[in-house]
């Protein structure tokens, strides 16, 4: 009903191309995360959907309507800004009800909906306060409440959690996810934090330099990154990469050789990158020889950094792994989870 369709969107800032022809289809009620490093164009794309920036090419559809040339107020959207953009000269109630008043909703109805919105975000005790009298977390919730009471079918969020401290962010993340389950608006959520993206998104669009690198469900992207960039951006720690070439059933690089039980004729002789996640490596009696650099006990597990040849590899090991720096160890890669990428382009090789 109110899906969002972006087709071939391009945007120029001077001579830099901020968006290089992006197309996405977002389903009604879906929570789509735009993820990428700063400067990748994710916020620009969101602002183009909101109507705060004009596209230089392509079009945007919300529901059945082409909104490419419409002003923000005619697009039936609500937005939460990174700085929250809470109006300092209005009370919390005034802020939450602002959009409703602009749409000439009758006063009694505004009051009811403001109270409901405040209730939903735990702001009821603060309705008569001014933003200056609120904490950062409370202000963030005012911004969310102000957007939600609009009952717009589309909700746009631009890094709404990035200004909160770590503990509060964890809490707010869970709250936002719960809210989405309750209100089921079509949501576009911009973030540079892959943990946020993984935990909240129905799907994630990983962006890089104005293009979309990969779109998919979080676990799909995590398990099958479309490129070295995606594998390195998603996951903490990021995916490990080893550069080498396949020869005679072995994957061999500088200072190491990994035996391959399943021959890959297609990879034979090619310069290639092996990608493997930290939790898919085990420390055992045999395997690829490595030397321990650092051991970081993290409570539930230990993160071991080891040198394979000249490449540092992170291994997620049991907390009682009992290795020490400089110790020689052997690593086994879970072959089913290993991904291959082209050494030149970084793109994943189909398997």
């Amino acid at each position, binding site marked *: 009903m109110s899906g969002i369709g972006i087709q071939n969107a391009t945007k120029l800032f001077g001579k830099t191309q901020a968006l290089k022809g992006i197309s996405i289809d977002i389903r009604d009620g879906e929570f789509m995360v735009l993820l990428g490093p700063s400067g990748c164009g994710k916020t620009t794309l969101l602002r183009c959907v*909101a*109507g*705060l920036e004009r596209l230089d090419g392509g079009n945007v559809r919300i529901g059945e309507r082409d909104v490419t040339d419409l*002003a*923000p*107020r005619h697009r039936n*959207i*609500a*937005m939460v*800004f*990174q*700085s929250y*953009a809470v*109006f*300092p*000269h209005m009370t919390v109630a005034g802020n939450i009800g*602002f*959009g409703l008043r*602009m*749409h000439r909703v009758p006063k009694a109805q505004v009051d009811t909906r403001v109270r409901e919105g405040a209730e939903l975000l735990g702001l009821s005790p603060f309705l008569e306060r001014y933003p200056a009298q609120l904490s950062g977390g409370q202000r963030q919730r005012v911004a969310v409440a*102000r957007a939600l009471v*609009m009952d717009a079918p589309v909700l*746009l969020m631009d890094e709404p959690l990035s200004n909160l401290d770590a503990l509060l962010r964890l809490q707010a993340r869970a709250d936002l996810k719960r809210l989405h389950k309750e209100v089921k608006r079509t949501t576009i959520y911009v973030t540079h934090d892959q943990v946020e993206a993984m935990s909240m998104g129905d799907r994630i669009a990983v962006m890089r330099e104005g293009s979309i690198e990969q779109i998919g469900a979080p676990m799909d992207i995590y398990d099958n990154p479309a490129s070295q960039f995606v594998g390195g951006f998603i996951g903490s720690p990021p995916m490990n990469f080893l550069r080498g070439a396949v020869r005679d059933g072995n994957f061999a690089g500088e200072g190491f050789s990994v035996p391959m039980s399943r021959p890959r004729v297609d990879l034979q002789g090619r310069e290639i990158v092996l990608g493997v996640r930290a939790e898919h490596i085990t420390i055992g009696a045999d395997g690829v020889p490595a030397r321990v650099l650092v051991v970081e006990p993290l409570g539930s597990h230990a993160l071991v950094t080891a040198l394979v040849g000249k490449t540092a590899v992170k291994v997620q090991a049991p907390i009682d792994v009992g290795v020490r720096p400089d110790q020689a160890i052997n690593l086994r890669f879970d072959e089913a989870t290993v991904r291959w990428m082209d050494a030149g382009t970084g793109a994943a090789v189909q398997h």
Partner: protein
Amino acid sequence: MNARVLDRTLIYGIAVLLAVWVLIPFYIIAISAFTPQAKIFDYPKPLIPTTFSTETMQFFVDARGVIPSVLNSVLVAVFTIVFGLALGTPAGYALARFHFRGREAFQVIVLATKMFPIAILSIPLAVTFLQLGLYDNLVSVALVHTAMALPFIILVTGGVFVAVSHELEEAAQTLGCSRWGAFLRVALPLALPGLAAAAIFTFVVSWNEVFAATILTLRTRTLPAQVLAGLGTSPLGFKFAGGLFMALPAVVFIFMIRRYLINLWGSR
């Protein structure tokens, strides 16, 4: 005695010196204005007034032409504020919000008009006005004053709007406002204290301006022009009282808006 104490002593010393430099003449004018006319020539002057009287002030206020010229001054100042803000606020807003071609050049040109002493600017302006036949009425004086106050108004309002986050206006737009509505409902209310400060400063500029007002007016003189016209022939008491009367609003207003002036001039 360490360096920091020395620094502070130096700063305070200079500050006190400057304050005294400004305050002593002002103080002498003030006490003279409240000394009876007969005692004005007493020498040495007592630093603490022994006889307080409003006789001199009364004499000044009662003098012919003073009351009408005060009214003229107030009207000119009000016109100046209206014209100045109507022209300066949009310019300041544009400087704060848009990165248009020639923005830096515009800023420099605005500032450059402040390089010249007011006398140099006001005479060509006044001549132009005379040639255009725009003289001896309050609106023409207000127009000259607007030209003089405009650079300041543009720079102050520009600073004020820079301090109002652009995201606030964008948020208002996503919540149902037009571009103009967002300005009226969000940016303008938040900028209002700063705009008020600009208005007050404009009032002071206009209230104190004497060159253009003297050249452009004969019958509709503003207060400074009126006082100047009679300066050579009026008694000393009249001059002191007039000086105080003209200085007082400026002092009071500047005191009221000092917070904004300090903000403007880069406080910490």
